[in-house]
């Protein structure tokens, strides 16, 4: 649903998200502008719809970065153990030593604000999570008898990693990917809210909230809808992730 909105944004949006009519500033929701207009007279519905496009783009790129890097690091660390594992995990510890979104802020501080850097920051910020989950999964799998059987049959390390260990780690990876889509959106919109991410006038939900702050009292609807959009999409991914967990990991079911 959310993906569909993002893809069809140009068709669905009734107005141009960046064209404002100054005469229509801060209008509450009406038949003409379903969700009202903002401080520059821009149609909020259109901006929220285009915002979906930006959000989806950020989520996909950031999670993909984290997924690929995290999975590879976790796999090699977990399988080879010893020094390799220690190096990788100490590196992850360094990343994790920054509480919460401090790491993402630090990365932005280095790279400067902007969409691309935001995606990089949110991606790197999520790498340790993937690395830890994959490593844990590999560690428990590599003691399993079917992996021993593969070694007894003379399989190479690469074959064991990609034919035996990775396919059996897919369930936690997929679940983590879905849940991370939610977290990444929260992080990215938070950074944009701080002005560290996507820059106005681009229609991004966090940035929209940030620009709406001054009008909280006079025009609360300007702040309401972008926030609602973030929450609904995050909730959607969380629900989907929980559902996946229940169906893919029957152990956690009651």
């Amino acid at each position, binding site marked *: 649903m959310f993906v569909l909105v993002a893809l069809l944004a140009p068709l669905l949006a009734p107005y141009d998200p960046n064209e404002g009519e100054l005469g229509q500033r801060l209008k509450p929701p009406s038949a003409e502008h379903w969700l009202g207009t903002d401080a520059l007279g821009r149609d909020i519905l259109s901006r929220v719809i285009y915002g979906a496009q930006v959000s989806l783009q950020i989520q996909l790129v950031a999670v993909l970065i984290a997924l690929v890097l995290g999975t590879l690091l976790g796999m090699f660390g977990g399988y080879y153990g010893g020094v390799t594992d220690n190096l990788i995990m100490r590196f992850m510890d360094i990343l994790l030593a920054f509480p919460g979104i401090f790491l993402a802020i630090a990365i932005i501080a280095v790279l400067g604000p902007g969409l691309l850097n935001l995606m990089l920051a949110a991606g790197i910020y999520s790498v340790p999570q993937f690395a830890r989950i994959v490593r844990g999964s590999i560690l428990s799998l590599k003691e399993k008898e079917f992996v021993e059987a593969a070694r*007894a*049959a003379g399989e190479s390390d690469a074959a064991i990693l990609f034919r*035996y260990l990775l396919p059996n780690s897919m369930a936690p990876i997929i679940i983590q990917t879905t849940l991370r889509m939610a977290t990444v959106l929260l992080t990215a919109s938070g950074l944009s809210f701080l002005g560290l991410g996507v820059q106005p006038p681009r229609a991004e939900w966090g940035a929209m909230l940030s620009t709406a702050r001054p009008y909280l009292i006079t025009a609360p609807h300007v702040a309401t809808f972008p926030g609602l959009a973030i929450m609904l999409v995050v909730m959607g991914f969380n629900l989907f992730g929980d559902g996946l967990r229940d169906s893919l990991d029957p152990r956690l079911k009651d």
Partner: protein
Amino acid sequence: MSALLLEVEGLTKHFAVTRGMAREKVFVRAVDGVDFAIARGETLGLVGESGCGKTTVGRLILRLIEPTGGAVRFDGRELTALDRKRLQPLRRSFQIIFQDPFASLNPRMTVSEIVGRPMEIHGLTRRAERDEKVGELLAAVGLRREQLARYPHEFSGGQRQRIGIARALATRPQLVVADEPTSALDVSVQAQILNLMKDLQGRFGLTYLFISHNIGVIRHISDRVAVMYLGKIVEMAGKGALFSKPLHPYTQALLAAVPSLDPRRRQEEVLLEGDVPSPVNPPPGCRFHTRCRFALPRCSREEPEFRPRADGRWVACHLY
């Protein structure tokens, strides 16, 4: 061709483990100098209680874990000296059957892949004829060819164990290490698997190292039996001799502890008190002396040698 397929000499494995809050490094002497040999076509039963090191012996022979010391000779070739690359082609000659029929099959592979992979690795089949060959093997272990494309979770425990056996036989090995292959199964299914293994041994000319804690199963399947206690073999003999007249006091106690199926013959006497000592600090001298009814003063000082007697039986005890 020598009569002995497998010779094991002084095989040793000490695991380093970190223990407790203090993270002190200690060595678990899981296997501590084990000698035995298996002749072609023979079944050697390796029996002992949990933690005695019998499973580790099986893994060491297959080089699934690296030994700390000792030698393993397979068909006259020293395996412990080979590097991974040179060992790889030899792997087709010795295979393993595992205890847990649920953990031992890759849940993401079909039966055809599970059984066919070992053939492919060793170049024994081409992709096109793989299913044909796997089908033959499935028939040999009592499954149907139509079950080729199924996944492990679609089978019962007994059927899964048959798939595990088919995989072990896929490369036409000479030696099969069976590590508690029936311990996870119910008695009626256990009987099916034991009968199947005996049958296959004749048809494929297999040599078995059969590892189990179940004395009844060991007695049923083995030609010769080796008894392990705390990382060492204490006694080894032909099945008939060992069961009719066990020599080592531990063997005697172990056999006496198995409850008899005759309700009119109730054993009241328990020959073995207390728990097995820790393999981290095994007792000095004979490892069994702390629980032995016949312990002599020298037993706590001098370690008895494991050596053959005139009648061909091996025992490690100062009484003999």
